[in-house]
Structure formats: structure tokens, C-alpha cells
């Protein structure tokens, strides 16, 4: 089973990198770009075949290592 984990800064946490990327896009002439937020994508292969158990295990991975839940949110996609 494969999973994709999206990690983003929580709403309300200032994202200086996203802000700089937004400014660079504006400088390149892209009009109408609103707020830009930068995050991380982590792809994981799992031996587990049960989606429920896989999701539970991935949730624990996020809580314990992959995300810092003080400043980050995570989303888990099982991709097949």
C-alpha cells in the first residue's frame, strides 16, 4: 500500500517562505496571486494491506515524527 502525506503550516502560523514565493511570483509578472503557503509531501510504501490499519499507523508516524503538530497540520492520502 502507498500513501502520500501532505504537511503544511497551521493556519495562523506565519509562513515566511510561502510569502517570499508569493512575492517572487508577483515579480515574475503573475497577476492575481493571493496567499502562498509552502509545505512538504512525503510518499511512503507500506507492507500493510488494510486501509484502516495503514491510516492508523500513518497517523502515529505523523504525530511522532513526520509533522511537528505545534506548527504543522498533516493530511494522509492512501494512494493505492
Amino acid at each position, binding site marked *: 500500500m502507498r500513501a502520500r502525506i501532505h504537511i503544511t503550516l497551521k493556519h495562523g*502560523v*506565519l509562513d*515566511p*517562505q510561502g510569502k*517570499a514565493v508569493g512575492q517572487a511570483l508577483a515579480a515574475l509578472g503573475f497577476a492575481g496571486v493571493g496567499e502562498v503557503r509552502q509545505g512538504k509531501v512525503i510518499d511512503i510504501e507500506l507492507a500493510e494491506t488494510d486501509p484502516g490499519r495503514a491510516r492508523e499507523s500513518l497517523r502515529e508516524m505523523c504525530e*511522532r*515524527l*513526520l509533522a*511537528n503538530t*505545534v*506548527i504543522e497540520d498533516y493530511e494522509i492520502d492512501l494512494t493505492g
Partner: protein
Amino acid sequence: MKTAVIVFPGSNCDRDSAVAVEAATGRAPAMVWHGEAALPPVDLIVIPGGFAYGDYLRSGAMAAHSPVMREVAAKARAGVAVLGICNGFQVLTEAGLLPGALMRNAGLRFICRDVALSVERDDTIFTRRYRAGATVTMPVAHNDGNYVADGETVARLEGEGLVAFRYRENPNGSTAAIAGILDPARRILGLMPHPERAADSVLGGTDGRALFEGLADSLAA
């Protein structure tokens, strides 16, 4: 006073920390590699600055889960003093030994210069050789020094007097200009500035020396 300095792959202030500790205590610290599962009997553990594990994932995230950190957490629970400097502060937050997180500097630049700090209290094992309210100068050298915590945590830190050092001029966007914090028992200090890089006049400053001397006074065996 017996000290252990933890060494991760990518630590780069471990030797400076050891020199500062030895100058203050007369005893060379044990240098303990991150893969060790046990620590010698010590009164102080220093988690030094650097870029442990290349800052992979997040600064301090991998180091926080290395084998030696389980032992550091156990010793901390038993009352052993812990000093985390710069990357060491990041490791302590990632390990859950101190609250909050250190984010990318608000200005997105790596900051490497001397900064003025206010000493917030002088009744701790780390700050007893300073005077509360005094201004001291130490260098910072970090990309991720922007201290962030939720409102409740910051209110608790302020209310319980757990802010040890504050920037006189906030260089990195830290909440409430926080440069260093203590755990509720005031036996763990994490700070972004480098006292060990200001512990000898040949380094350009000596304001950091008092921190190590204060520890030597407090923890003299």
C-alpha cells in the same frame, strides 16, 4: 561537576561547549555519541549547536529520536540539568522536553552576529551569575530561531517566569522576543544564542562565561 556533551552527526559546537565547560569547572566533559544508549553519571548534559542530521525533515527532528535522547529525557526527569544551545534548543523542543517550536527566521536569512539579550531572571542554576534585567551580548548563528508556541503556552511561560533570556531587538520574529526558555522545574534551559562562543576574550566576548560558571557553582559535587 560532571558533564556530558552529546555529539550528533552534524554537531559543530560540541568542542566549543566542552572548552567552555572545562574552563568553568576544571573537568573535561564526557563526549557522548548520539548512538549510545547510556550516559555516564553526570550533573549536566549539554546538547550543542550545529546541524544534527543535516536538519533533515526539520531542525532537531531526527536528533530528538536518536538513541541517546531517550536517556537524556530519563536523566532530565530525574533532575539532571540540561542545557540546549541553538540546535540543542531545537532538539529539546522536538523531543518534547521544552514547549513550542523554532521556525524559519521571519526574515528568511541565516543570522550570524552578536545580539543583545536581557537576562529575565537570576535565580536559576543557569543565570545565577547574572543580574536580572542586565543586558548581555552573545552571538546567534541560525536559520530556524523564530520561537513559536500557542497563546496558552506563551501565557504560561510568561506567567510562570520561564523565559530566561529575551532579545533586546528581535532578530528573527520570535514570539515575545523569546531567546531562551526554562522547563517548569528550571533544570532545563534551551536558548538560541551561543554562550560558549562568548566564553573567552579571544572569541570577542565573555558574557557567556557566567552561564557556565553559574552551573559550576550550582552543580558542584
